[in-house]
């Protein structure tokens, strides 16, 4: 008993001296995910400076070259530098991931709160959402892409639309639980206005699960963008993206595996880091999971 107590005090003391270390020990997934994601984001942001070569510059004499000091990740079928293309491609992935997460969550919150609070709207909205969920997301996105000129913005829209129903369902379910809570009735009993009730009393109570959901949407959007580009229905070919690169490398995979390997690795690590971050945030923000010392 005395030993454990002493231990406890020691650990308390050490964690208060270096709070950062204590935090990392308590939430290893969160810290690992955030660090990995930061590295990915830094590489993508710093692409123009780190990758000295133009990602779109072709060099017919040096096609399908394996990794070397000149070309760190080798060159592709048109002699373009895979390293710079991978870094530049990361920009597309992150922009798409973050924009989709933000737009799908905010649109989903608006629709979901309406569904949760307005009885009449609920039936209508939820049937439309059920209908949207019946169509496989990738097909819906491909269909949306064919309607518009290919650009990063259209990709974002095409991926956002199939993600919205999931957010709507989550928000609606949460609103239905929270609006029955006694504190909502108590707020009503002191004369709180309807819109204020929604904004100030309901919304803050659903923010936590929403943040977690947003990170998962972000990860799924990054993969989705790669799918679409791989299928040729995503980011236009003149903009390097991981999906594009893997689609182009597919034909020569037996000659030059590295063309697929590097964007694939980057894609995998990015998605992993976002998912780790999401898991970590869930543990951090969920009060029901006991805070371990």
């Amino acid at each position, binding site marked *: 008993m005395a030993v454990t107590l002493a231990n406890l005090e020691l650990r308390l003391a050490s964690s208060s001296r270096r709070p950062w270390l204590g935090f990392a020990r308590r939430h290893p997934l969160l810290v690992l995910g955030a660090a990995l994601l930061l590295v990915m984001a830094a590489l993508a942001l710093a692409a123009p400076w780190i990758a000295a070569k133009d990602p779109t510059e072709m060099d017919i004499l040096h096609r399908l070259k394996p990794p070397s000091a000149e070309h760190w990740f080798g060159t592709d079928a048109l002699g373009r530098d895979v390293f710079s293309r991978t870094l530049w491609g990361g920009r597309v992935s992150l922009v798409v991931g973050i924009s989709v997460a933000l737009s799908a969550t905010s649109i989903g919150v608006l629709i979901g709160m309406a569904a949760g609070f307005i009885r009449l709207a609920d039936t209508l909205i939820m049937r439309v959402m059920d209908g949207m969920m019946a169509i496989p997301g990738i097909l819906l996105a491909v269909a949306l892409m064919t309607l518009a000129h290919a650009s990063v913005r259209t990709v974002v829209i095409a991926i956002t639309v199939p993600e919205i129903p999931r957010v709507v369902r989550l928000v609606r379910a949460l609103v239905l639980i929270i609006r029955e809570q*006694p504190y909502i009735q108590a707020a009503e009993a*002191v004369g709180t206005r309807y819109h204020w009730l929604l904004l100030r009393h309901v919304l803050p*109570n659903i923010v936590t699960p929403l943040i977690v959901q947003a990170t998962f949407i972000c990860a799924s959007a990054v993969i989705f963008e790669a799918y679409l580009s791989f299928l040729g229905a995503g980011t236009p070919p003149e903009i390097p993206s991981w999906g594009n690169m893997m689609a182009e490398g597919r034909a020569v995979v037996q000659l030059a595996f590295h063309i697929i390997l590097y964007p694939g690795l980057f894609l995998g690590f990015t998605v992993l880091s976002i998912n780790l971050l999401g898991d970590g945030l869930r543990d951090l923000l969920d009060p029901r999971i006991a805070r371990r010392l």
Partner: protein
Amino acid sequence: MNPAPLLEIEDLKVYFANRDGIFRAVDGVSCTLDPGETLGIVGESGCGKSVTAMSILRLIPSPPSVVAGGAIRYRGADLLQVSEQRMREIRGNEISMIFQDPMTSLNPVLTIGEQIAETVTLHQKLGGRASWDRAVEMLQLVNIPEPVKRAREYPHQFSGGMRQRAMIALALACNPNVLIADEPSTALDVTIQAQILDLMLKLKQEFGTAIIMITHDLGVVAETCARVLVMYAGRKVEEAPVADLFREPLHPYTQGLLASIPKLHTLGGGHPGRRQRLAEIPGMVPSLSDQVQGCPFAPRCPRATAQCREAAPPLEPKGGGRMVACWRPGVDA
């Protein structure tokens, strides 16, 4: 008698309709509340106490509820008829409510101070700073130690008794004329209960607030109320000044309630070594969907006669501000 009462409920009927039929939660209840008075409403679970209270603030969702009749007059205006806009002005500002469970009646993501200040801002048209000061002042008034610091804390940092005190602070922040307390001490342990009741009485004197105290605990009634209304199966069965009710209950249901309070001498005091059983009222509260013929209490009543089973007794004044709905009142069983 008195001039106009502050609040007057007249023949209120609130029904709930669902596929199993109609539930007569409140079936013709009338009562009055004078300024500064404390009125107790007692009865078993499900007898319509809370529905009556919530109806005053129009807090019962409709559907499924239907106000089938009656009026609730507050300063002459029928609360069942006024606009939703006017109702919002009344809620929290003129008529406030305290709920049973202090653990869930405060929003977990807002600080205590924010929740009180918000209500003050809403009704008193005060600025943010002034509202915050008022919130701190209210917390001080309900004996929260270090109110300045505590106002910045969240509900989970408060104990149950402190939360209920914070609820009282919230309910009284705008100095309402009427405070409806729906089982304010039920979820608390006995010592904290006493503190909360004392606090409510002290504040009532300070602010001149009239209180409607809803409870199933006759002890609470005896300590706090001037007049009591006994409800059974959605109806008012007896009304009396508190002393009279305890000295000489007229309705057999009230008599049963009083007999079922544990007393020291019944716990083996009279006959050493031999304990008397605690008196109880046999049977169950009738389902509110049953169409009762006759007195709703007749099936459980020790004195029921054929007359009781045939026709419901009317509520009759018995003098001295007393009323009872019984064919054979007052006779001791």
